[in-house]
C-alpha cells in the first residue's frame, strides 16, 4: 500500500459527476492508494461561504475534526472541497480566537479541531504520494497518438497563499501527469482562466462566454480532448458544449475527460470501466486513436 486516505466525496460528484468517482477509484486502486469512506458526511461548506462565512467555517471544521478522530488525511476528487478544507485548516491553526469560537460550537457534538490532518486533491496525492515513476510503471497502453489540452481550474491553485500547490501563473503538475500517460499536452491561450461555472444561475450569458472562450482557444491548437480535474469545470464544459455550439453557431466537438479517465485508458482499463458512457460530448473519435 502506497498511502491510506479518508475519501471526502463532496456534493457535486454523487449528484451528477459519477464518472469522476468511478474512474478515480479504479486508478487509485491500481496505484495502491487505499480509500476509507467518511463515517458521516456534511458538505465542505464552500457553497454557503458567500452568504455565511461562519457556516462555511463550521461545516469545514467539522469534517476536519471527524478526519482527526479517524487519524487519516483527507483525499478529495473536487478542488473546491480540497481548497476549502485546506484554507480552513490553515486559518484556524493560525487564528486562536477564531479556532476557540469554532471549537466551542463543535463541542456540542463532541468534536474538536486540532489541525492535525491535511486535505489533498487527487492530483496532489498522485504527484506527491504515488510519484511519477510509479504512475509511469502503471502505463501499459501509452496514448502516444493523442493530443490534449488541460484545464486546472481555479481552486486547485488559488488563492495561492492558502493552497500552496504548484505555480498559479504557470501550473505544471497536471501537464506532467498528462504527459506520463504518453499523450501530448498542448499549450494554449489563457490556460489558467476560470471555467465560469460559479456564474451559472447568476448570469448565464457571462458563464457561457467564459466557457466558449476557453473552448475556442483549445480548438485553435487542435486538441482532441480537454482534460479536467474538477467536477464543476467538467459540468461547465461537458454539459454546455452543445449549448454553446447552438448559441454561437460554432462547432467544437471536443470531448471533456476527467484526468482519471485519461490515466485509466493508459493503464489499460476499458472506456466502459471508466464510465465513458456518462460523457455528454461523444468521445468515440478520440478512442479510435488509442
Amino acid at each position: 500500500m502506497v498511502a491510506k486516505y479518508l475519501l471526502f466525496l463532496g456534493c457535486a460528484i454523487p449528484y451528477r459527476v459519477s464518472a469522476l468517482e468511478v474512474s478515480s477509484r479504479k486508478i487509485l486502486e491500481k496505484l495502491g492508494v487505499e480509500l476509507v469512506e467518511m463515517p458521516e458526511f456534511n458538505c465542505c461548506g464552500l457553497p454557503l461561504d458567500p452568504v455565511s462565512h461562519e457556516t462555511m467555517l463550521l461545516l469545514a471544521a467539522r469534517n476536519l475534526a471527524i478526519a482527526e478522530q479517524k487519524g487519516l488525511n483527507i483525499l478529495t476528487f473536487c478542488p473546491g472541497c480540497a481548497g476549502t478544507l485546506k484554507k480552513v485548516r490553515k486559518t484556524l491553526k493560525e487564528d486562536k480566537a477564531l479556532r476557540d469560537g469554532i471549537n466551542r460550537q463543535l463541542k456540542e457534538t463532541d468534536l474538536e479541531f486540532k489541525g492535525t490532518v491535511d486535505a489533498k486533491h487527487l492530483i496532489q496525492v498522485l504527484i506527491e504520494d504515488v510519484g511519477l515513476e510509479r504512475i509511469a510503471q502503471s502505463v501499459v497502453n501509452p496514448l502516444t497518438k493523442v493530443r490534449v489540452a488541460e484545464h486546472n481550474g481555479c481552486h486547485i491553485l488559488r488563492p495561492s497563499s492558502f493552497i500552496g500547490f504548484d505555480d498559479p501563473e504557470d501550473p505544471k503538475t497536471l501537464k506532467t501527469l498528462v504527459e506520463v500517460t504518453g499523450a501530448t499536452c498542448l499549450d494554449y491561450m489563457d490556460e489558467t482562466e476560470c471555467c465560469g461555472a460559479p456564474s451559472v444561475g447568476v448570469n448565464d450569458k457571462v458563464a457561457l462566454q467564459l466557457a466558449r472562450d476557453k473552448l475556442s482557444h483549445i480548438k485553435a491548437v487542435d486538441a482532441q480532448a480537454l482534460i479536467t480535474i474538477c467536477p464543476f469545470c467538467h459540468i461547465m464544459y461537458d454539459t454546455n458544449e452543445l449549448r454553446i455550439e447552438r448559441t454561437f453557431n460554432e462547432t467544437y466537438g471536443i470531448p471533456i475527460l476527467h484526468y482519471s479517465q485519461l490515466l485509466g485508458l493508459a493503464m489499460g482499463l476499458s472506456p466502459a470501466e471508466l464510465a465513458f458512457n456518462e460523457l455528454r460530448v461523444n468521445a468515440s473519435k478520440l478512442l479510435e486513436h488509442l
Partner: protein
Amino acid sequence: MAECKEKETNKPTKLDPQFKYQISKMHGGEKLMRCFQCGTCTSDCPVARFSDTYRPRQIIRMAQLGMKDKVLSSDTLWLCAACFTCTDRCPQDVEVANVIRVLRNLAAEEGYIPQVFKEQFDSILESGYAYKIPELRLKKRETSGLPPLPKGNQQKIKKTLSEVHLFKDKQKEGQ
C-alpha cells in the same frame, strides 16, 4: 434574483462613514483600506471581461466611500466567480475576493439572498449534501459497484449550526 434588483432612486446616495470599519472588522475584510485603486483586479477579472456591470475595483471603492445601501443591494455583487485571480495578483494584498465575500455576507444579513443559497442551506441541514441526490443516482451507485453514500447526521449538523444567525427562522422550523 428578483429580490436583489438594484433600486433606482433620484435621491442622493446615502453614505455610511462607518461602513469601511464594519467591513475591516470582519474576517477577510481586514485589508479593505489598503486599496489604492490600481485596477489590477478588474483588468484581470474573467467575469469583468464579459460583464458590462461587474467591476471589482468599483465595488471596493464604493465600500471605502461608505455607499453601503447601494453596494449591498446590487445584483453585480453576486457575479464574482470566486476564481481568486484578483486576490493572487493584488499588489496591495487586499484579498479582493474575500472583501467581496464579506460584502455578500453583509448583503445576506440585510436580506438580499439569491434563492439558490436558501435551497442549499436547507438541503445541507436535511441530508448533509448541498444538493438533493436523486434516488436514481443512489440506485445507480450499486450497479456501478460504488459503495453506499455516507449519510449526513441531521441532528449533529443542526447542533453545529445552531448559533448561525442566517436563516434562523428556518432552522427553528426544522427543529
